[in-house]
């Protein structure tokens, strides 16, 4: 149990300070560690949990659920403790970084390197998100109906301002009625 906690803390503290471009970029590493390295869950469970996690909160609430599942074998109370530990380890280091950089920002914000870093990091995070999309796709698009739903969601996201939570709830209802 303590060992699982330690693994969660070590993993998420590293991912916290590696998430350049938002939480989604750490998804491939998270999947690899949670599924293949620590065997906390199956690929299908990982993708299911990712689907559940985007309903509320900042991106990467899936870390909460990974912490929950990692400790679920020790009972519900320990599982929630695991979720808490994972969440803190994921969101605290990056928040501290905001405070530290914010303190020295005024003397640094006119530096041209600022722009260099931003331009350099954006394509890297795009590559990560692309890899993450492949992982999600492989375990979510199994059939023609799921492929159609995914495509519709993609088009709605790109061309409308519809709230994604509405899409998720609608898709859950539709697939419950037709795919059951």
């Amino acid at each position, binding site marked *: 149990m303590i060992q699982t906690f330690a693994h969660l803390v070590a993993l998420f503290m590293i991912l916290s300070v590696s998430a350049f471009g938002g939480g989604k970029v750490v998804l491939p590493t998270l999947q690899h560690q949670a599924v293949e390295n620590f065997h906390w869950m199956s690929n299908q469970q990982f993708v299911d949990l990712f*689907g559940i996690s985007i309903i509320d909160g900042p991106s990467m609430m899936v870390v909460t659920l990974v912490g929950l599942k990692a400790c679920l074998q020790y009972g519900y109370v320990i599982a929630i403790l695991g979720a808490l530990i994972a969440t803190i380890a994921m969101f605290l280091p990056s928040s501290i970084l905001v405070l530290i950089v914010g303190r020295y920002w005024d003397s640094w914000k006119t530096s041209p390197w600022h722009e260099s870093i931003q331009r350099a990091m954006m394509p890297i995070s795009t590559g990560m998100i692309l890899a993450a999309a492949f992982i999600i796709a492989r375990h979510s698009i199994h*059939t023609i109906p799921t492929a159609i739903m995914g495509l519709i969601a993609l088009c709605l996201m790109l061309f409308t301002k519809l709230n994604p939570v509405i899409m998720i709830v609608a898709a859950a209802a539709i697939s419950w009625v037709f795919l059951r």
Partner: protein
Amino acid sequence: MPVEAPNPDNTSGLVSTNPPRVSLWELVFFFGLIGLTSFGGGLTAYIRRLAVTQKGWLTDEEFFSALAIVQILPGARVVGISVYIGNHLRGLLGASLALLSIMTPPFILVCFLGLLYFHYGENSDSKALLAGVTAVACGLMASMVFEAGQKSIRGIFDVLMIIVTFLLVRLGHMHVQYVILLLGPIAIWWHRPRAEKKTDGIDQKGSIT
């Protein structure tokens, strides 16, 4: 309680102007409400409307300065902005409370849904339900690839970086921190400030939706 003193908590050096006096309860309530209603993202614009336009807690300039900071740093943007605003208003205590309040509602909700999932996840009803949820999640992810690509591609080097990152992660199973340590310096060097070439200003406000 020193009500008279003008912002005694602002020892951070983060700000140039004096932020208004905001009670800790108000901070907790504000960020708790955002955490509670943060369904589906698009929150940066929402926070700006509430904190800048409605409450007047910080100026637009300060807000975009905060946004520039969190965009260059790792981590979820909304969390970074909240921590920044909390610190701006009430120092370290404000930052801690902002983080705590914005995270608690989604934490409880997501934990609850997670426990439901592990309890009922194996029956056919929830499997059918989740098929739709994950399909939409995949669509969302794909849309993020388009958005991120649109923002990041300015030349052939950027395309190359996307492909190399993708291959390292997908085929090489390289972890994100090593990819950044490996490719980050190369890309930063490539985009280094050059005196003769006028750099086309990157759209720092562009990602506000």
